[in-house]
């Protein structure tokens, strides 16, 4: 019953927290404890999947061909673990900074529940249900913990744009069900090979748009900067580190496993869109001053890398997409959590995050970038290699720019800090920052587990995909 355990931990806690005032310490501590237990359970589950292969349980004890399955393979497990860890760190930071809203703990735990369920389900429709649970919690978080000014407007636009994405996804699920006659992911993948090619292309494009919106890819990115700028840094960390994983996972699951031929067919378009995302994100980031705005555009750029990896395809490309997504989620969390904190330790932690994003060893980001280069070499795509190199160089430029702008100058009296966020931070906040930085470093020094799991995930995708 290990697979159901994270859900069984998070669900009752989320219910109980909904009735408590989240601004008080106990609520925050219960939320942290629940997220910590869930993360630990997912860690054990991850180990079990790595050793014994995919785990599954059928809800209600039904026979497997009728019941709804909870199913986890290496791909789902690594994303679930990363997401839970990111939410744990962000929640800890939120509590350390003093929660500003009574709904933050419960919404965070509900979001964790939705995301965990989404990564652990083997059923297309329950994927949608969990996905909406996570998204609705996110809409609530923007309203509760937004900053002054246009926070509601940013939240409203965020909700509207993402809802259009969600409904497109729902329509695509209906169409997929019509085309294959089942909702069970493995069975869908098996039957997807026989779908009429025209239908399959339409389906693939709809799924691509739906997940592109979540990921904040170039043509669908408009909502992203204003939202990341309009919320507290720890909420932005949740969005960039946890919520954006839906997009990457969805593209891998629905593109890589269910519609791989369409993915191959659209590879050029996908790489071009990814490239445009990378360049656009980087150029916009260079032209911005405010740290969180730079990071928001950097998130758009880094969504592009996942897409390029997916477009390059093959086992190496898929491995790269997984490794890069995980490393990127951790990097973004670290950067957002430390972006407004000052002091020696926080400067170092931010620097570690920045170097990791740029891909300097020893950091988690190095292996993300390295696996991308490997995928580029494997696909013999000079264009992709040039793109990765240029993207990396631009990343260096804007991160160095904000680092020296924020931390190498004495701050003038009354300087531009419109939300009064920049502080030395409380000791607990600094501890969280240091711990996340250490995780990024440790993953950089000892990346074997991550690489092994990513290899396993890629192999699993190849095996399940219809050929």
């Amino acid at each position: 019953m290990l697979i159901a355990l994270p859900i069984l931990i998070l669900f009752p806690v989320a219910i109980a927290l909904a009735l408590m005032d989240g601004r008080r310490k106990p609520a925050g501590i219960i939320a942290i404890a629940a997220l910590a237990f869930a993360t630990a359970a997912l860690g054990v589950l991850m180990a079990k999947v790595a050793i014994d292969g995919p785990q599954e349980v059928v809800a209600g004890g039904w026979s497997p061909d009728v019941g709804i399955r909870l199913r986890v393979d290496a791909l789902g497990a690594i994303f679930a673990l990363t997401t839970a860890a990111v939410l744990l760190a962000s929640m800890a930071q939120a509590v350390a900074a003093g929660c500003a809203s009574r709904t933050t703990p419960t919404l965070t735990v509900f979001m964790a529940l939705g995301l965990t369920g989404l990564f652990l389900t083997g059923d297309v429709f329950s994927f949608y249900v969990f996905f909406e649970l996570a998204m609705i919690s996110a809409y609530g978080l923007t309203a509760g913990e937004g900053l002054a000014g246009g926070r509601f407007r940013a939240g409203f636009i965020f909700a509207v744009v993402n809802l259009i994405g969600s409904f497109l996804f729902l329509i695509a699920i209906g169409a997929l069900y019509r085309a294959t006659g089942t909702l069970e992911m493995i069975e869908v993948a098996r039957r997807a090979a026989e779908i009429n090619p025209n239908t399959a292309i339409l389906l693939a494009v709809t799924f691509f748009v739906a997940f592109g919106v979540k990921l904040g890819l170039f043509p669908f990115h408009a909502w992203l900067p204003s939202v990341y700028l309009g919320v507290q840094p720890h909420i932005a960390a949740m969005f960039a580190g946890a919520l954006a994983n839906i997009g990457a996972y969805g593209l891998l699951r629905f593109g890589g496993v269910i519609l791989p031929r369409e993915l191959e067919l659209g590879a050029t378009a996908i790489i071009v869109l990814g490239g445009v995302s990378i360049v656009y994100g980087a150029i916009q980031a260079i032209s911005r001053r405010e740290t969180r705005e730079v990071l928001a555009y950097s998130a758009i750029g880094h969504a592009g890398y996942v897409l390029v990896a997916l477009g390059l395809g093959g086992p190496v490309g898929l491995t790269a997409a997984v490794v890069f997504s995980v490393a990127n989620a951790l990097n973004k969390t670290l950067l957002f959590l430390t972006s407004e904190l000052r002091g020696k330790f926080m400067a170092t932690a931010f620097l570690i995050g920045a170097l990791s994003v740029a891909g300097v060893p020893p950091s988690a980001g190095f292996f993300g970038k390295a696996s991308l280069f490997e995928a580029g070499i494997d696909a013999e795509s000079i264009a992709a290699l040039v793109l990765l190199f240029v993207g990396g160089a631009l990343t260096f430029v804007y991160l160095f720019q904000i680092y020296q702008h924020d931390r190498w100058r004495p701050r003038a009296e009354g300087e531009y800090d419109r939300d009064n966020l920049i502080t030395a931070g409380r000791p607990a906040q600094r501890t969280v920052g240091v711990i996340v930085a250490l995780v990024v470093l440790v993953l950089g020094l000892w990346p074997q587990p991550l690489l092994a799991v990513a290899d396993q995930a890629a192999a699993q995708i190849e095996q399940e995909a219809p050929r």
Partner: protein
Amino acid sequence: MTTSALTRMISRSLLAPTLIVALAILVKGYASVGDGFSAGVVAALGILLQMLAFGRDQVTADLPIHRAPLVAMTGLFIGFAVLAVPVLTGGAPLEHWPPPDEKPIYLGTVELITAVVFDIGVFLLVLGSCVKVIDALAGAAAEDDA
């Protein structure tokens, strides 16, 4: 906003029947049309009618509206219990009781099965959250009028 005495009288006398119809829909769901969700919506509509006829202040004074979140979360928790209890006893999540081929316990014509418990949870959840939404929107409207 004022309503006529007739409207108020009719809506007052409609509250109890609405709730009874809601309960009927809930328990009949296993033999005929109905389920916890529609029952919850019907009951919430009963409350909405009171709000429209008497205004929010009056209804909040008469009925325990402020308990709505508690009701909703109790319902959600019942749903969770149906999910979790079978796991604790070694089964699959959401496993049905009684198992196939076993006779359920009858309470009149109502079968006592897990699905009924789950639907009561759904009923409470829907009732609680609908009332809370209605209350929040009514409260916002009242504040804007003031």
